[in-house]
C-alpha cells in the first residue's frame, strides 16, 4: 500500500510531472545497480530465505553478558556506586509521592485535582477531573490508582527534565540537532516491549526498572518539541532582543523559552500520554498499581476485573490530556485575565481548599476510600462478554460468526501474504524496500531502510520477521480502510466528530491487555486476534489525523471546485484528498508504527513470530531470544517508518 500512496499524488500539476521525472530517474538508477549486483549475489547465495552464510549468532555473547550482570550486580562498582543509587533514588521519590498522596487521603487528592484543573483549565474541566477521581474510588481502585499516579509523577518529571535538557541542546546547536534527530526517531519507533528485558536485567524486577523504561519511552516527544519550539522562534523578535544587547542566556530565558511555551506544553502533554500507556506495559516487570491489577485479572481470565482497573487509566489519561491541552490553548489565546482570582490569589485559594478537604477527611477518619462506596462492575461486564461470545462466535445467520471471519482472514489474507513474503528471494525484498523508501524519501532514508532490513537477516530471524511483517501489513491495510472511511465521514460532520471523540479516547488509552481476552473469545487463538487488537489500537490516531488533514484543506479551493459544478464525491477525490496528502501520509506512517507496537503484544494471544520471541525472552530471562527479537522489531519499525515517511519530516508525532 505504500506504493499506492506513492503514486496517487503525482497526477496533474507541473510539480507532479517533475516529481515523476525524478522518480523515474531514481528507479532507473536502482534498476541499474540491481542488474549488476543481483546476478553476483544470486550466484553466491541463491536461496529464498536469508542465506546462513551471512548470519551472526549472538546467543553466546548475549548469554554471557546476561550471566555477567547477574553475577556482578551486587558487587561491581558500576552497580554499587552508580546504578544502585539511581535505583534507590527512584524508589525513594516514588515512595515520597505515594506517601503524600496517601496522607492527603481521597478527599484531599480529589479536591486537589479539581482545583488545579479549575486554575489551569476552567470550571467545566474541574468538575470532570474531580468526578474522574471519584470514579476511580467507586470502582474500588483507589490505592492502585495512587500507586500508578506516584510512579507516573516521578516518571513524567524525569522524562520532562531529560527531554528538556536534550531539547535545549538540540534547539541551540545545529550539529547536536542533526545528530540527535535519528536517535529520537529511533527511540520513537521502538516498541516498548522490546527493551523491557535489558532494563530488567540491570535494575531487576520492580519500580526502578518500570520508571526507567517509561522515561526511555516518554522523553523523546518532550525533547523533540522543545527543540522545535526553540528553533521556531520568530527571527524578528530574536534580532530585536539581540540588538538590545542581551547575552545568550538572557536571549534564551527572556525570549526563546517564552516564545516556545506552546510547544513545551504540547511536549508535556505527549509525554504524559506516553508515560500512561507505558504504566500498564511496565506491569509485566512488576511496576504494581493499576497495570498490575489489569495483568492479574488477565491471569484469571476476568475481563470485568480488568476493565475495572482499565477505566481509571483511561480517566487519568483523559483528564491529564484535557487539562494540559486547555492550558496550551489559554497560553495561545493571550487574553488578559482580569478576574479578582488571577495569579497567586487563585492559587492560594486552591491550596487552601485542598488542605481543608484533606484535613476534614482526616478528622472525620475517612482517609481511605470507604469500602461501602465501591461499585462492583465485574459481574455484569463478564455476563455481557459471555453473551457476546455465545451469540457472535459462530453460526450467526448470513454473515457467519466471528470465529469464521478470523479463520477466513487467516487463510485468505495472512497466510498468502506471509508465504508470499517468505517465498520472495531475500535480495528482492531489499530491492523493494530500497525502491519504496527512495521514491517517497531521500537516498538516506532508503539506505537506513535497507540496512535495517539487512540487519534482520544478519540476526537470523528473517522468517519470523517476515511473519510479523505480514501481520503488520494486514493490520495496516484494515486500519487504513476503516480509518480513512471514518475520517472522511467525520470531516464532513461536526456532530459525528464530537460523538467519536470520547470513543477514540477510550480506544487509544484503554490498556491493550484489557481487550486481549475478549479478542480471543471472539476470534480464537492465533494471528487474527493479534491483528484485530492492533487495528483497535491504531485506528484512533489514523481517524484523527485524517479528519484534521481534510479539515485543513482551504475552503476556497473546495468552493471554487463546487462552483465549477463538481459533485461532493469529485471534490473529495480530486481536491480534498490530494491537498490533504501530507496528512494522509502521516496517518499511514502512524498507523504502521502503532500497529507494529501492538502486534508484539499479540504474542500474548497466539500471534507468534517476533512478539512471541520477545515475550519468551522476558519470561525465561533469556537475553539471546528476547533481545534479538526486540532488535528485529526495532529494525522492522525503522524500515517501515522510513518506507512510509514523507520527504518532509513531520513536526510532531501522535494525534
Amino acid at each position, binding site marked *: 500500500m505504500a506504493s499506492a500512496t506513492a503514486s496517487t499524488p503525482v497526477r496533474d500539476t507541473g510539480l507532479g510531472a517533475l516529481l515523476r521525472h525524478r522518480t523515474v530517474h531514481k528507479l532507473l538508477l536502482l534498476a541499474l545497480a540491481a542488474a549488476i549486483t543481483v546476478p553476483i549475489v544470486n550466484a553466491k547465495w541463491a536461496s529464498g530465505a536469508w542465506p546462513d552464510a551471512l548470519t551472526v549468532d549472538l546467543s553466546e555473547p548475549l548469554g554471557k553478558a546476561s550471566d555477567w550482570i547477574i553475577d556482578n550486580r551486587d558487587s561491581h562498582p558500576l552497580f554499587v556506586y552508580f546504578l544502585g543509587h539511581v535505583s534507590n533514588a527512584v524508589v525513594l521519590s516514588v515512595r515520597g509521592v505515594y506517601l503524600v498522596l496517601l496522607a492527603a487521603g481521597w478527599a484531599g487528592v480529589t479536591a486537589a485535582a479539581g482545583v488545579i484543573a479549575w486554575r489551569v483549565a476552567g470550571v467545566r474541566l474541574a468538575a470532570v477531573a474531580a468526578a474522574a477521581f471519584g470514579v476511580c474510588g467507586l470502582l474500588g481502585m483507589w490505592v492502585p490508582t495512587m500507586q500508578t499516579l506516584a510512579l507516573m509523577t516521578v516518571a513524567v518529571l524525569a522524562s520532562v527534565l531529560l527531554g528538556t535538557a536534550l531539547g535545549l541542546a538540540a534547539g541551540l546547536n545545529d550539529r547536536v540537532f542533526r545528530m540527535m534527530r535519528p536517535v529520537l526517531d529511533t527511540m520513537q519507533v521502538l516498541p516498548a516491549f522490546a527493551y523491557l528485558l535489558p532494563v530488567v536485567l540491570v535494575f531487576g524486577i520492580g519500580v526502578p526498572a518500570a520508571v526507567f523504561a517509561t522515561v526511555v519511552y516518554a522523553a523523546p516527544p518532550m525533547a523533540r518539541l522543545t527543540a522545535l519550539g526553540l528553533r521556531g522562534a520568530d527571527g524578528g523578535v530574536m534580532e530585536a532582543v539581540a540588538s538590545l544587547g542581551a547575552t545568550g542566556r538572557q536571549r534564551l530565558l527572556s525570549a526563546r523559552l517564552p516564545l516556545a511555551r506552546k510547544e513545551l506544553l504540547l511536549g508535556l502533554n505527549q509525554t504524559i500520554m506516553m508515560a500512561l500507556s507505558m504504566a500498564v506495559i511496565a506491569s509485566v516487570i512488576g511496576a504494581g498499581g493499576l497495570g498490575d491489577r489489569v495483568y492479574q485479572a488477565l491471569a484469571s481470565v476476568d475481563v470485568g476485573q480488568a476493565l475495572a482497573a482499565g477505566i481509571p487509566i483511561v480517566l487519568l489519561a483523559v483528564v491529564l490530556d484535557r487539562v494540559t491541552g486547555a492550558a496550551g490553548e489559554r497560553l495561545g489565546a493571550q487574553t488578559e485575565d482580569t478576574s479578582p482570582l488571577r495569579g497567586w490569589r487563585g492559587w492560594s485559594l486552591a491550596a487552601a481548599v485542598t488542605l481543608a478537604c484533606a484535613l476534614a477527611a482526616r478528622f472525620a477518619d475517612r482517609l481511605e476510600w470507604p469500602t461501602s462506596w465501591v461499585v462492583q462492575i465485574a459481574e455484569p461486564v463478564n455476563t455481557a462478554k459471555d453473551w457476546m461470545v455465545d451469540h457472535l462466535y459462530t453460526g450467526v445467520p448470513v454473515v457467519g460468526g466471528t470465529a469464521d471471519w478470523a479463520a477466513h482472514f487467516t487463510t485468505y489474507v495472512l497466510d498468502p501474504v506471509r508465504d508470499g513474503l517468505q517465498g520472495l528471494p531475500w535480495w528482492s525484498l531489499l530491492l523493494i524496500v530500497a525502491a519504496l523508501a527512495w521514491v517517497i524519501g531521500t537516498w538516506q532514508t532508503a539506505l537506513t531502510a535497507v540496512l535495517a532490513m539487512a540487519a534482520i537477516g544478519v540476526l537470523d530471524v528473517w522468517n519470523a520477521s517476515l511473519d510479523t511483517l505480514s501481520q503488520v501489513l494486514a493490520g495496516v491495510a484494515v486500519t487504513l480502510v476503516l480509518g480513512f472511511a471514518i475520517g472522511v465521514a467525520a470531516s464532513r460532520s461536526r456532530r459525528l466528530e464530537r460523538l467519536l471523540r470520547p470513543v477514540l479516547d477510550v480506544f487509544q488509552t484503554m490498556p491493550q491487555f484489557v481487550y*486481549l481476552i475478549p479478542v480471543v473469545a471472539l476470534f480464537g487463538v492465533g494471528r487474527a486476534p493479534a491483528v484485530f487488537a492492533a487495528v483497535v489500537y491504531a485506528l484512533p490516531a489514523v481517524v484523527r489525523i485524517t479528519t484534521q488533514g481534510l479539515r485543513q484543506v482551504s475552503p476556497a479551493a473546495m468552493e471554487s471546485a463546487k462552483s465549477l459544478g463538481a459533485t461532493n464525491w469529485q471534490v473529495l477525490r480530486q481536491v480534498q484528498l490530494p491537498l490533504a496528502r501530507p496528512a494522509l501520509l502521516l496517518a499511514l506512517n502512524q498507523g504502521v508504527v502503532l500497529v507494529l507496537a501492538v502486534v508484539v503484544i499479540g504474542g500474548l494471544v497466539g500471534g507468534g513470530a517476533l512478539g512471541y520471541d520477545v515475550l519468551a525472552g522476558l519470561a525465561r530471562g533469556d537475553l539471546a531470544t528476547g533481545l534479538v527479537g526486540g532488535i528485529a522489531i526495532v529494525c522492522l519499525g525503522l524500515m517501515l517508518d522510513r518506507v512510509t515517511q514523507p520527504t518532509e519530516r513531520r513536526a510532531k508525532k501522535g494525534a
Partner: protein
Amino acid sequence: MRTRTRVIAAAGAGAALLALSGCGKADMSKQASPYANAAGAKTVTLSVQSWVGAQADVAVAEYLLKHELGYRVDKVQIDEIPAWDALSQGRVDAIMEDWGHPDQEQRYIKDKKTIVPGGDVGVTGHIGWYVPTYFAKKHPDVTDWKNLNKYAKDFRTPESGGKGQLMDGSPSYVTNDKALVENLDLDYKVVFAGSEAAQITQIEQFAKQQKPFLTYWYKPQWLFKKVPMTEVKLPAYKEGCDADPAKIKCAYPHTPLQKYFNADFAKNGGDAAAFLKRFKWTEADQNEVSLMIADKKMSPEDAAERWLADNESKWKAWLPK
C-alpha cells in the same frame, strides 16, 4: 568561557547526585518495593505466578499473614524465572509454588546462596497432553500417542496450516513440545497461545462447541472441573530421559511442587517465615480455592476466607506456636 561554565555545571550536578544518594555503596540486593511498609506495618512481599493454583496458595497465605499474624502483604505478579531473580535481590520474600528450575537452583541456592528451599507445597504437579473427554469417549484410541497422527485432521485449525494443532500456552511454562512433535514424528504443529488466559479462553470456546482439540495442560488445575479432559499417553518418563532437550522422546515427570525463600528472609523473617515454611496442603484443597477464584470469579481474599472457615484444623497447625 562558555565551555568552562558548562563543565562546572556538569560537575556540580554530578556532585549533587552523589550527595543526594549518600556517597556510599548502594546495596542492589536489598531493595524493597516503594509501596511496602507504607503504614509503618511489617510487610511480606510474595510473588504470584500467573496460574490460578499459585494465586490460591498466595491468597490463603496472605489471609493468614494478615489476620492471624498481623503482617501487611504485597503481591507482585512476575514470570517464573524473573521471580527467582527478584527473590535473590530481596524484591520479593517468597515464591509459593515452583515447578522445578534446575539452572536457577544451581545459580542462586548452591552458588550465590541468596535463596533457600522452603519445603513442599504438598501438591504434585504434572504436565501432559490432553484431549477433551467428550472426544476421548468417542475415539478411545486417541489417548495413545501412537494413534495421534490418525487424528491430526480433526485437530486442524487455520493457524496450524495442513497439520494438527497442539496448543501450548504461556512462553514461560516448561515445555518440550516442539522437540517431542519432531522426535516422535507427529504430523502436528505447536501453536503457542502466548498466555494461559488466551489458552483457557480458547479451550472453553472449543468445549462450548464440543470441538476436538489437543492441548498442553497440567495438573492440578481448576479447569478440569469445567472442561473434563483425558491425558494422552506419551512414552513413559524415566529418570534422565529429558536431559538433552533436543533428543527428548518421553513424557513429563511428576514434580512435587516447592516453595523458595530469600535467604535473608528465611533467617530473619520471624513468624512470617516460620509460618510459610509450615504451609502445606493438598491438591483437593488447592483446587477448591482455585475454582472459587477462577470460575466463580470470587476475589482471592473471599475465596481464601471461605476455605479457611471450613478447614480450621488444617491451618491451625501451620501457625507458629
